């Protein structure tokens, strides 16, 4: 069993959720409450990372993360390190690839928050920030859980983008998905099956916990 790959996978999925969910809360909320003409186009734009085949998206990311490309050189100047073939790089790639899964459920959830509850919160003296924390977040919680679950699961399974940008470096960018892929390619079906089972088990437990917790809302319906 490739434990270091599992650890990379879990770290990648964890960090992706950790960064992407707050970001999507902000973006999804903005999209949910905003009313402007080009909103449909904006929403379409958010879904676009999905449309490219992962390897191709990975290819374009590899190109733009390079030290000669704007993104990569900016990052290199900032940190002294490149993006390609580093954990940071695959994390960034994973953030981009997962954006649609994270934003959409959260946006929909915010759209369902009754406006008068926000007003009632303001009238109870809650600042916009407190309103977000104490009223909106609990109400959009199922949406957040959906977003987190989809992001988490998809990051675990993501392969094309990560392989391209990360280069499958042991202990840094080689995820369990890549390891399983390698096993399949090497016709080691038993090894692949074992790792797949492990991956499925870990995900199942994680997701089961997430959904189980999210489902425990006594206040839903009478």
């Amino acid at each position, binding site marked *: 069993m490739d434990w270091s790959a599992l650890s990379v996978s879990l770290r990648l999925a964890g960090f992706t959720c950790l960064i992407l969910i707050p970001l999507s809360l902000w973006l999804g909320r903005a999209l949910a409450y905003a009313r402007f003409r080009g909103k449909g186009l904006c929403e379409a734009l958010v879904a676009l990372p999905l449309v490219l085949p992962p390897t191709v998206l990975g290819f374009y990311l*590899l190109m733009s993360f390079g030290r000669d490309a704007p993104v990569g050189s900016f990052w290199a100047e900032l940190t002294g390190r490149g993006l390609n*073939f580093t954990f940071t790089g695959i994390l960034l790639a994973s953030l981009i690839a997962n954006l649609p899964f994270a934003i959409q459920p959260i946006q929909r959830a915010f759209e369902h928050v009754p406006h008068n509850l926000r007003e009632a919160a303001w009238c109870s003296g809650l600042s916009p920030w407190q309103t977000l924390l104490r009223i909106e977040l609990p109400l959009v919680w199922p949406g957040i859980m959906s977003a987190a679950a989809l992001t988490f699961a998809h990051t675990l399974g993501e392969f094309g983008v990560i392989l*391209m940008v990360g280069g499958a470096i042991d202990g840094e960018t080689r995820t369990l998905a890549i390891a399983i892929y390698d096993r399949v*390619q090497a*016709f080691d*079906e038993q090894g692949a099956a074992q790792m797949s089972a492990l991956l499925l088990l870990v995900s199942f437990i994680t997701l089961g916990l997430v959904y189980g917790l999210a489902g425990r809302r006594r206040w839903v319906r009478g």
Partner: protein
Amino acid sequence: GAPIVAAASDLQFALPEAAERFEQETGHALRLNFGSSGNFRRQIAQGAPFELYLSADERYVQALYEQGYTKDKGVIYAIGRLVWLQRAGRDDLPGEDVPLAAVQSALEAHASGASERIALANPEHAPYGVAAQQVLEHAGLWEQTEPLRVFGENVSQAAQFALSDDARGGLVAYSLALAPALNARSEYVLIPEAWHSPLRQRMVLTNQAGEVASAFYQWLQEDERQAILRTYGFSVE
């Protein structure tokens, strides 16, 4: 850590054995990454930390050399062979002299309504795919097989296709056919080398290569090591 070797997928079985022996002899460990030679070429051009690159397509090494990412032009380390691979136990493996008889029979079956596929790697970019196309063209079957062909992304996937229930078989790398993992499940016949242009595989040290990688590079070129490659179905120049 140990230097990373980026190697073409058809070396999946041969190279680990070589690396293990190298470690026994020299005490130096290596990390092996297998994958698409094309992807490796791109990644090396982007500064990937690969020290040795064993490509299935010598043109990629050439290109990297011209762009200045490698120490030199590299050397040919092996020449690939093609086989007709099919599921074991079908009782209809073609004879050595008529390796493409299976393709013929698949075509005949197709005419009567059945559809058993023929697998090969994608000739657009996989070296073994190019060779397979040449073989079929050589036999004058390229056009006819059009409705039966399925393309793997690389030669490993082509082998998976070849062994699936819905395929008659496929043209894949000899090195895969010899792999212990496939031995029990498959049978094969060799395709004459002359039917396609040689699959010359070239390796090269990248600019990042350190001492260990260079040592391995040299080590692989020694005659006795080439025997390992030979047992895995590569011929050597």
